[in-house]
């Protein structure tokens, strides 16, 4: 009780300073949580596109980005004939722009693709897809920002297309995307006879290894990965994840420096008190624990405030119409635990030097300190 009072006393004595430290940690935690959650959501959405009604994804080996992957049509034809394969769907990814919208994702797909055949069509008829090379189907949000309706013409990149359907999908990328017949997309993106990936569904999920081996043998320049493997190994995902953690880490580092500054000030302004505690029998360990305790308390308060701020901010982002479908606010307990752990670790690390300093205070000298 006395120990807690000693810790709280100093926090209460310098309320503004304590508040600033807590705020520093809180905003760092909120920033980390927001950035990591948004990026993980984006990665989840992208991988969701790839894993739509499939187990395996095949793409060109050693490409840094799927947009640069070229999988020949011959490979699609051959693989789809293998007995273990239920269906193999080629998908061509492309990025185009329109007026006011610098980035629109395009999906070149076949009519049999699950994205078309299993989608929730708001308007239009799925049987009309790929009947004409100038026909496109829009995601609901794409239709919104392109101000397009069924039957209207839309300018996408250098060409004009005829809207023959509008889809509703929970995936932000698909919802803001344009679906073209595969042949039309190959022509539009100058990628004749190739797709970016093949998504494969097997008749028997136990044949995954056999399929991977067979693809490796038949097409040495292609690589087949299970969806989970792809999520872990795809370099773009890894870069995004690393960036998210780096940005969050920088935020926490700044928060930690704030705590360090607070704790240094805290120790310097009460050297005499520390000396009094030493004279009254406090050991080095007890003095150190008091400083660490103070710092840990600031960090825990900061982490809790940061989680509240970050979560609220994510929910607000989710409600913004322009971001609909792009922000996937799924609170992951593991992520939260990591963030709290990092916040406390940062706070405690920030208190390291002040603690060592406090532990080294010589009572006899500090008692002369005014």
């Amino acid at each position: 009780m006395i120990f807690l009072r000693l810790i709280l006393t100093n926090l209460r004595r310098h309320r503004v300073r304590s508040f600033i430290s807590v705020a520093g940690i809180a905003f760092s935690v909120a920033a980390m949580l927001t950035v990591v959650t948004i990026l993980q959501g984006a990665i989840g959405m992208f991988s969701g596109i790839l894993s739509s009604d499939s187990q395996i994804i095949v793409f060109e080996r050693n490409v840094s980005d799927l947009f640069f992957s070229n999988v020949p049509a011959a490979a699609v034809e051959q693989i789809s004939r293998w007995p273990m394969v239920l269906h193999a769907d080629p998908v061509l990814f492309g990025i185009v722009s329109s007026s006011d919208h610098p980035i629109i994702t395009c999906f070149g797909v076949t009519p049999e693709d699950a994205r078309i055949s299993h989608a929730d069509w708001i308007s239009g008829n799925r049987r009309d897809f790929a009947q004409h090379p100038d026909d496109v189907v829009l995601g609901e949000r794409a239709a919104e920002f392109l101000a397009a309706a069924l039957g209207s013409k839309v300018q996408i990149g250098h060409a004009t297309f005829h809207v023959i359907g509008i889809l509703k999908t929970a995936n932000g990328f698909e919802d803001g995307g344009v679906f073209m017949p595969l042949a039309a997309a190959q022509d539009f993106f100058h990628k004749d006879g190739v797709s970016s990936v093949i998504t494969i569904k097997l008749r028997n999920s136990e044949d995954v290894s056999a399929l991977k081996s067979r693809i490796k043998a038949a097409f040495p320049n292609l690589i087949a990965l299970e969806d989970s493997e792809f999520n872990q190994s795809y370099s773009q995902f890894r870069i995004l994840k690393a960036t998210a953690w780096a940005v969050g880490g920088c935020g926490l580092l700044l928060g930690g420096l704030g705590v360090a500054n607070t704790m240094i000030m805290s120790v310097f302004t009460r050297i005499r008190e520390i000396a009094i505690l030493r004279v009254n029998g406090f050991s080095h360990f007890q003095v150190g624990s008091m400083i660490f305790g103070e710092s840990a308390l600031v960090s825990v308060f900061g982490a809790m405030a940061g989680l509240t701020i970050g979560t609220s901010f994510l929910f607000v982002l989710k409600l913004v119409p322009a971001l609909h479908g792009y922000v996937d606010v799924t609170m992951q307990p593991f992520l939260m635990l990591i963030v709290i752990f990092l916040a406390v670790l940062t706070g405690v690390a920030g208190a390291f030097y002040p603690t060592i300093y406090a532990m080294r205070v010589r009572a006899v000298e500090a008692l002369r300190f005014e």
Partner: protein
Amino acid sequence: MNPLFKGGRGDLVLRAEAVCKSYDEGMIAVLKGVDFAAVERQTVALCGPSGCGKSTLLHLLGGLDQPDRGRIWVNGREIGGQRDLVRLLRHEVGFVFQLHNLIPDLTLEENCLIPTFAAGIDRRTAQARLRQLAEATGLSHRLGHSIQRLSGGERQRTALCRALMNKPRILLADEPTGSLDEYTSAIVFDLLLDLVATEGVTLIMATHDRSLAERCDRLVEMHDGRVNEPIPA
């Protein structure tokens, strides 16, 4: 009678032998081979001009500082490593300073409980001890009050309570009434002597006040970093 035992009873509780202490890398020699001893339940006044080394000697005797040369024994054990010093400050020595050195944001009770917390004494025992000392010092009605609301005399009495909380055998007091007016000083000193007698504590007090010093069992003069006291074999 050997003056060393005047007023005291029983064993030697404190002994310093050829203790030297200097500051600024030896430039300022404060203690130049001090020999000193005190026995159980004795009150000893250290007198001498400012800068003669009274406070430094008290700090060394209480383990707050280490001598450059010489040896010090407290209750028969030589002061040594860090662990010894913590044990010394927790159980064997209490300090009272010229300034009360209380923590202003805590209450009187919380300030007094600090040494018991440090020593790991359970709260119930600590509070019983505090009630006993508060009654003896007339502070019972002030236990829950903040230090900032206490008078100078009350603060010094609180400091006295705190120093005695863990029942030390030795009380080291550095000008304990130096910051008080004459009237309050007399009251606090009377109380100090009463408590020391009741608790059976050995008091070593540095003071400039001759009238207070003469009320102690022994008056030891310090001059230019030296004390000449006969030490029994």
